[in-house]
């Protein structure tokens, strides 16, 4: 049998695609910002916090880095209700994404912090700066400049990985694709188009991250 390509079969569903795309963009944007905030706190605690906190962060990071994202997502969405914590698909998706990127970015930022010579910290402390001020003005600035490329890659990975949230029916781009395909049975066309959209999203995101990097992350 021959399969006739029929991309116009997608047309009636363009709004579903658009909403799915929008959801994916918002999901990625929010979890990037919050996830990196979590990672910054995590890395700071890991490098400068008291041993108990540093240990706690380490457990969190290892737990997340050594389990599949989809299992983390299912645990949050299907598992937590057993403890009486029932979350909507959307909330669960956001939380899972933040928790995941938080762990990876903790590790990435920590590597950046570790690469700062101890002498810089001592110089800051000797200038009467508090540890927090040293962290903010000297350590993190430099750390971010060092790890910005790695962090950028991770953000793109997280954006692509967000497709997994369709598995709990969070209404992202992949969820929209699944939905459309189940209606018009045009699997090839639907996933071909959606793959293209992800590809463009990736390219755009990398470009955006490079702009932000050039503008704000001074390497000196």
């Amino acid at each position, binding site marked *: 049998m021959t399969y006739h390509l029929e991309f116009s079969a997608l047309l009636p569903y363009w709004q579903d695609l658009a909403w799915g795309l929008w959801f994916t963009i918002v999901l990625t944007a929010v979890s990037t910002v919050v996830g990196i905030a979590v990672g910054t706190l995590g890395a700071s605690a890991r490098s400068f916090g008291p041993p108990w906190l540093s240990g706690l962060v380490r457990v969190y990071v290892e737990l997340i880095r050594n389990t599949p994202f989809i299992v983390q997502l299912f645990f949050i969405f299907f598992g937590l209700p057993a403890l009486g914590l029932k979350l909507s698909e959307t909330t669960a998706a956001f939380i899972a994404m933040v928790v995941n990127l938080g762990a990876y970015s903790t590790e990435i930022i920590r590597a950046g912090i570790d690469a700062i010579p101890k002498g*810089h910290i001592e*110089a800051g402390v000797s200038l009467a700066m508090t540890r927090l001020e040293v962290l903010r003005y*000297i350590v993190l600035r430099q750390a971010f400049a060092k790890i910005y490329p790695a962090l950028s890659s991770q953000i793109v990975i997280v954006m692509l990985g967000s497709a997994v949230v369709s598995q709990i029916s969070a209404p992202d781009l992949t969820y929209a694709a699944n939905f459309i395909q189940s209606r018009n049975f045009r699997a090839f066309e639907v996933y071909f188009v959606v793959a293209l959209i992800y590809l463009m999203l990736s390219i755009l995101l990398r470009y955006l991250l490079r702009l932000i990097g050039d503008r704000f992350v001074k390497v000196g």
Partner: protein
Amino acid sequence: MSLVSIRDVRKSYGTVEVLKGVSLEVEKGDVVAIIGRSGSGKSTLLRCINGLETYQSGAILADGIEVGGLHANLRELRRHVGMVFQQFNLFPHLTAAENVMLAPTVVNKTPKKEARAIAAEVLAKVGLSEKMDAYPSQLSGGQQQRVAIARSLAMRPKVLLCDEITSALDPELVNEVLRVVEQLAKEGMTLILVTHEMRFARDVGTHLVFMHHGKVHESGKPKEVFAAPQTPELQQFVSGIG
């Protein structure tokens, strides 16, 4: 009262005692040169003075603040006790001026404009007016170290600690840094310097301290001490340097 008063300070790393009861009085305007073999505890002593290291017994008072006290106000202390390191330790993501302005703006809450004026003043003092907007990577070692000195001066310290600040420099860059330090000494800045520049210690120092095995082994007026070292250890050290 002395500006810096060190009384019978003992410090150990684990079971190894590196300061074995050091006492030293530094008056305002003194230029104290500390010399001694590698491992004799010079850096450790300096680092104890501004609280970078803790010590186990004895007392250090700097500008009236007890450094080792349980609730020592180290932030207040360090506003008055500057430190310059062997490795410059400039912040590479900031320009020379920004390096200098950081502590005044963050610690003293000096407005940006005023801080910039301070930066201009102290960078002029170290002869780097034209390098205000250069990044550390664009400066020679000697220039970097002069920026580091300016950075400390911006906090208007009452005493400046210098730990072998010319040791990481190529020989031809040593003098430009020493000249800056000499100028500071002339202007009455209180200085405690660990140095291997014996001639500088003799010519610029008002006091010489020879440390040996974690103790002040010999001390006095630089010219007298160098002319007639009393202990065999110092005799050997001085002749070894050549």
